[in-house]
């Protein structure tokens, strides 16, 4: 069925951390365990550092979007502000509402972080840096990130507060709805590249990124993904789950200190995950930018290491998300549902159909060299 697909140029040798651990295990089990532990510590460090950097960036970018300066006091241009805030959150009193479901109240933020952490496993940072390169990577991330909504629902429910519950219910409805569109747009890329394995999807974009390599449908899929993913991670203009103007803080109204920090961490990790998904599926992931037959240009681009390419693309995506957040006003609940069921979903289905036809007819750009 997929015989019109290009034979992948395997110029990049892909190896994941889990593969490396298992090969080392054959030689020396202790080394493998040390290796795995180091990887875990690295992930945790990466997780907290990413969140801290993102929070600082978001505050700075938001401030300048609104003609303000943002944090300026702690360190040069407030660069250490996130560290100060983290310390504050760590030392804060842990307040649990009297009538709350204590165990669930504690479990909810942990679940949110857990979902984000699990999704991080499949992210391909570079050909040599991915925790695991599983053959259902795309499916895995879609599934696991859906787990986060359970944390939000639990948090809202266990707080025993009407605002929290309303926020949580909204989040549930929203995420379930928008997951459809997000998946439909992801399917377009999966169809074109003929694989759900991230390394193969990235390598299939050797000649050009799917956003323009798939004629029009790629761009439409990208736009749908952009909207749906923003809604999935509850960011403005889709932050109805928090909706501070009507729900004080939505599902995390009753959270403070470390527990709140966990929700916060999960929120920014999700931003990172969604951005890396977008960058990997539509913008070529760690693959350097190649344009047709411009050999010299392509060689110059190859000089930039793939990890940096990935970082650049993800930063671009994150910036776009922040730009949206600080520009657009929040939607009403009915508008939100209308946008999904009356606009995004029908367009997504038609787009998928077109993409299927295009894939079968082998009609997309730059197929020759591959």
């Amino acid at each position: 069925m997929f015989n019109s697909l290009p034979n992948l140029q395997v110029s990049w040798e892909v190896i994941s951390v889990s593969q490396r651990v298992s090969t080392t295990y054959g030689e020396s089990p202790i080394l493998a365990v040390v290796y795995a532990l180091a990887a875990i510590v690295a992930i945790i460090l990466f997780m907290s550092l990413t969140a801290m950097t993102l929070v600082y960036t978001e505050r700075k970018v938001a401030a300048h979007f609104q003609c303000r300066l943002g944090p300026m006091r702690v360190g040069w241009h407030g660069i250490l502000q996130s560290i100060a805030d983290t310390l504050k959150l760590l030392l804060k009193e842990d307040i649990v509402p009297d009538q709350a479901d204590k165990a669930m109240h504690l479990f909810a933020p942990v679940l949110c972080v857990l979902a984000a952490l699990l999704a991080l496993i499949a992210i391909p940072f570079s050909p040599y840096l991915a925790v695991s390169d599983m053959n259902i990577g795309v499916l895995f991330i879609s599934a696991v990130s859906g787990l986060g909504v359970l944390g939000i629902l639990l948090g809202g429910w266990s707080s025993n507060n009407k605002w929290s519950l309303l926020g949580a219910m909204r989040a549930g409805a929203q995420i379930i709805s928008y997951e459809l569109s997000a998946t439909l747009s992801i399917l377009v890329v999966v169809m074109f590249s003929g694989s759900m394995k991230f390394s193969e999807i990235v390598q299939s974009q050797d000649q050009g990124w799917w956003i323009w390599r798939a004629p029009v449908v790629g761009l439409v899929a990208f736009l749908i993904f952009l909207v749906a993913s923003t809604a999935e991670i509850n960011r403005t203009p889709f932050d109805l789950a928090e909706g501070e103007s009507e729900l004080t803080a939505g599902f995390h109204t009753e959270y403070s200190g470390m527990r709140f920090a966990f929700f916060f961490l999960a929120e920014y990790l999700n931003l990172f995950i969604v951005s890396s998904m977008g960058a990997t599926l539509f913008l070529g992931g760690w693959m350097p930018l190649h344009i047709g037959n411009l050999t010299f240009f392509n060689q110059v681009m190859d000089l930039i290491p793939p990890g940096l390419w990935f970082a650049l693309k993800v930063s671009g995506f994150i910036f776009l998300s922040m730009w949206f957040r600080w520009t657009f006003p929040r939607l009403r609940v009915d508008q939100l549902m209308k946008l999904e069921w009356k606009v995004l979903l029908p367009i997504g289905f038609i787009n998928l159909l077109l993409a299927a036809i295009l894939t079968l007819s082998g009609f997309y750009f730059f197929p020759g060299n591959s």
Partner: protein
Amino acid sequence: MNDTSAQPTRRIPITGYFARIFTGFVSLLKGLKITFHYLSHPSTVVTQQYPENRATLKMAERLRAQLTMIHDDNGYHKCTACHICEQACPNASIHVAERAKPALSKTELDTFIWRLDSCTFCNLCVMVCPFQVLQMKSTFESSVYDQRLLIYNLSRYAGPTSTVLAKQADDEARKNAVEPRSVYDGPTALNGFFLAGIPKELLVTLDRKGEV
């Protein structure tokens, strides 16, 4: 986009569906353009880095942070102690104390007491004064450690208005008609004016050196 949504009963044709998506998209892009302009032009930032820029800080003229009484070049004001501002104040933040023994006019101002701590800066007193004696200034660094220090005396002397004084024969006569009542001159006489929560004895010995 608006004209079609205003008529909910009418069916939106399929072209209208796409037109609405398109116009919505365009307007979103316009919004993005505006915010990007702010981001890319740091000169649009309005935040002041106070107190670092304290020396060069310029506050807006219209900022109402402190009530002042206008005194002319000779140090004389135009207040006739008519009490209109006192009555206009919704918070009883003003007390106009008349001179017990007026020298030249029927009524003369002794001390003009203004309580910053209960003032809402509504500007009513400034607007009602028939002689434009009062003025709002933008000097905003008014914080002190003792609430009593927020009770100001705005008049610099007790005596008739500048108009009456101008009619006097010489400086000697003018000097005899006034006596100093300045915030710089030590305790402010409050003429028995009751201030909630503050014992009277304290008020008499209130020292406001260096304030205002």
